[in-house]
């Protein structure tokens, strides 16, 4: 096997040094009753060629990937990935390194993550960001745990029902062992979070919103900040589509205390939902309560600028059971990818792509409404929106599927009250021709 370099002669020479007669003797101290019985039953090894064939067959059996267009986001988006991004970030020196424990030989990763933290903070309108979390969902859960740590004696958090349903599930998983209460805030008729229930909560630690929310609707974050802060709670703003902040005001500029979400849009393929990127930012005054790793700037013995992992006393390897989080491995390479992606866009490019997303989504929305669909919510949206139909949309959707277009997702599995409504997404990757095909199909 090409990954196993030992020749038989070398094995014998090495055994002679270690004082064993045969390889099996290295395991002599393992009790009989712990040993594996017989040989493992796994498929016979495949050559590179056979493996490639096998993967071609698997890929052919993922029909959605051969589609011309998937007009669905819901936390996983199709955006153009410049060739340079994977080309650079998959360089071996980045790809095959471990966590940068030895700073002197990890300055590439460390400066790259410092740049990621900086661009993330600028994007979200915040002061500091960490080196990443697993995904948008666990980032939100960790943000809520952080808020509960900061507010100490309070045990209730309110989360908007317009947050991605899976994110809310993950929050419940993370909080299930603690003495916490989760209150869900209803979705109003405008598709935005209804805050009226807040008044009845006594020990409110934090309120979490998503904007754009699961329906693509832009929440009024400034008003939300006022409402939440006057309830003496921390404001957590999350997202699944960070491109929105190329056009809409950032959560930080709107008054959020902690901002977190999913960064898959920034250079990661959808890859059946992972790996993505948990982005996490907060105000400087809360930086010592951050979960996860952070990179900081410092100097070396000669006074030269350099970067290290820092604020380690918050972390599991030092604080153990008193750590701010148990996270160790994060999504480092995805963070580096996002930084290279944001840098490739630049501020100018980011604004242009964000507007193009808005324009294209608006074109489809308008076209479908003119063809008879109805907007579920009239509030501004970014690149996702929800439509209802007088007649069953499923036959239209099936005809489009035959043409290689996945037209939206029915919401009944997530929200009973919106059964029959469909969530759509249009990004810069969808051509007008595809959008026209969808509109035309609805007219038939």
């Amino acid at each position, binding site marked *: 096997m090409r990954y*196993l370099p030992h020749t038989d002669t070398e094995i014998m020479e090495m055994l002679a040094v270690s004082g064993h007669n045969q390889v099996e003797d290295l395991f002599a101290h393992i009790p009989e009753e712990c040993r594996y019985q017989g040989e493992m039953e796994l498929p016979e090894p495949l050559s590179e060629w056979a493996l490639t064939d096998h993967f071609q067959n698997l890929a052919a059996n993922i029909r959605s990937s051969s589609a011309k267009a998937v007009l669905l986001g819901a936390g996983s988006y199709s955006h153009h990935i410049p060739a340079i991004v994977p080309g650079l970030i998959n360089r071996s020196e980045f790809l095959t390194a471990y966590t940068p424990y030895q700073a002197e*030989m990890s300055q590439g990763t460390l400066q790259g993550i410092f740049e990621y933290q900086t661009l993330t903070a600028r994007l979200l309108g915040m002061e500091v960001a960490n080196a990443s979390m697993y995904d948008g969902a666990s980032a939100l859960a960790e943000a809520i745990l952080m808020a509960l740590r900061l507010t100490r004696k309070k045990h209730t958090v309110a989360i908007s029902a317009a947050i991605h349903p899976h994110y809310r599930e993950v929050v419940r998983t993370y909080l299930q062992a603690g003495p916490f209460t989760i209150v869900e805030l209803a979705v109003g008729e405008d598709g935005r979070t209804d805050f009226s229930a807040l008044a009845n909560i006594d020990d409110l630690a934090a309120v979490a919103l998503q904007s754009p929310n699961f329906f693509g609707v832009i929440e009024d974050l400034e008003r939300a900040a006022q409402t939440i802060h006057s309830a003496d709670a921390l404001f957590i703003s999350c997202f699944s589509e960070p491109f929105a902040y190329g056009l809409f005001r950032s959560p930080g500029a709107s008054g959020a205390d902690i901002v977190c979400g999913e960064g898959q849009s920034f250079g990661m393929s959808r*890859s059946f939902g992972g790996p993505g990127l948990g982005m996490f930012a907060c105000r400087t005054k809360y930086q010592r309560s951050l979960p996860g790793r952070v990179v900081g700037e410092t100097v070396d013995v000669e006074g030269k600028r350099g970067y290290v992992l820092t604020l380690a006393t918050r972390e599991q390897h030092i604080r153990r059971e008193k750590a701010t989080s*148990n996270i160790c491995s994060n999504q480092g390479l995805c963070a580096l990818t996002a930084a290279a992606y944001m840098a490739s866009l630049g501020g100018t490019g980011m604004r242009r792509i964000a507007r193009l997303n808005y324009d294209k989504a608006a074109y489809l929305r308008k076209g479908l409404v003119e063809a008879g669909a109805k907007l579920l919510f009239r509030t501004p949206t970014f690149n996702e929106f929800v439509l209802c139909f007088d007649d069953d949309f499923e036959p239209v959707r099936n005809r489009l599927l035959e043409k290689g277009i996945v037209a939206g997702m029915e919401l009944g599995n997530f929200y009973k009250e919106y059964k029959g409504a469909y969530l759509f997404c249009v990004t810069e990757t969808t051509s007008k021709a595809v959008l026209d095909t969808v509109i035309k199909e609805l007219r038939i």
Partner: protein
Amino acid sequence: MMPGPGRSGLILEEPLLWEKGKEGRTAFSMPEQDVPECSGEVDRELLGNGPDFPDLSEMDIVRHYTRLSTWNFGIDTGMYPLGSCTMKYNPKINEKMAATPGIAASHPLLADELSQGALQVMFELQTFLATLTGMDAVSLQPAAGAQGEMAGMLVFASYFRKKGEKRNKILIPDTAHGTNPASAALCGFKPVQVKSGADGILDPKIVAELMDEETVGIMLTNPNTLGLFEESIREITAIVHGKGGLVYGDGANMNAVMGLVDFKRCGIDIMHLNLHKTFSTPHGGGGPGAGPVCVVEELEPFLPVPRIVKGRDSYHLEVDCPDSIGRLHAFFGNFGVLVRAYSYILSMGAENLKKASQLAVLNANYVRESLRDVLHLAYDKPCMHECVFSDKKQQEHKISTLDMAKRLIDHGYHPPTIYFPLVVPGAIMIEPTETENKDDLDQFITVFKDVAREAREDGERLRQSPMHSKVRRLDETLAARSPCLTG
């Protein structure tokens, strides 16, 4: 002439991204504006200015990241004997497989019938991992080892809640990874430390004294972080089970025992694996990893949702699992990482995986035996896939583990794990992995011996090292005291 591959070379300076660039440059291939512009219609109250990112050209970006990469060190650069991290070769073919267009482009929320190939990969990988560990059922959802631990601890909590038992303590050996107590605490358990015995492994008598009916069980790593097999594991698990408890196994060190140890037979009830260690997926300078959990049949109902189920001739997702701990990830975990591990197992097959473990253990024992004259051996007994030394011999020359580690950098090696496990003061934990050949090990051994010689004869050189790297020793105190986390 230095004995290792390290030499000084030309280092190219590169500023921070925002210290270069000019407004109006771009590295992005802008798509056509083929629909009317209408963003002017947006409510002004909601609009922002967009982020303050530098505008850079494609060449700017390419040079920037290429230069940064040259300041890094990966397995592809050289030997990376970072104990407990299993830095083995990351096969290139696995990268290619994960990038297969149909796989990379798959959306996670479409109907099962549109995603059969992706579900097949996950179902088969679950089966492989069950076979490898001897366990009965697997969830691939945890995004890293620590999230696997958390899944395990939540399973513990759900199991006892269902039985109507109130237990709030958990036994964790002093050799545990830091994530273990942190994960247990996150799930509401109070860690109780179990001291390892004089021979570096757990003494069943001590476990018996601590285990009671207020304790959920024990969380242990086997082989442990000293690179030693817990030889009394069967007795220990029997003690814990006898008090109604459960046993969690941290499988970070699985690379020592593939096809050699059956964890179910050892009495483990639930364990996680680190696919970015044993199963060769690249660590990416911090992640993404994957930390699947494997359980015995009795605990299967508690695994995270969705479960991947094989029907007569198709795969589907099952979410209706009332005892499940719930969802851990927005979708299915780090699928791209799972694909690489799947590709690795298919490339290796059963015989080569077992051989990989045998050679990993052979390499560690070879290094252990070859360096024992110059470095103090923390526990003088045969090791598994890693060996732990300390700086006891060098302390008399006022040279620490850190000094030796930094000197190895100048010689062209990534240092071993240092100052862990905590039970060995000044620990030097070396895990060569099976993909290092004898010639390269011999060179590493020669270098380490030379470093030990320098420790005796030229200590100042060690204290000043590294000297050939992009930066020299960095002021970590300054970084922590006045944090500068963004530029």
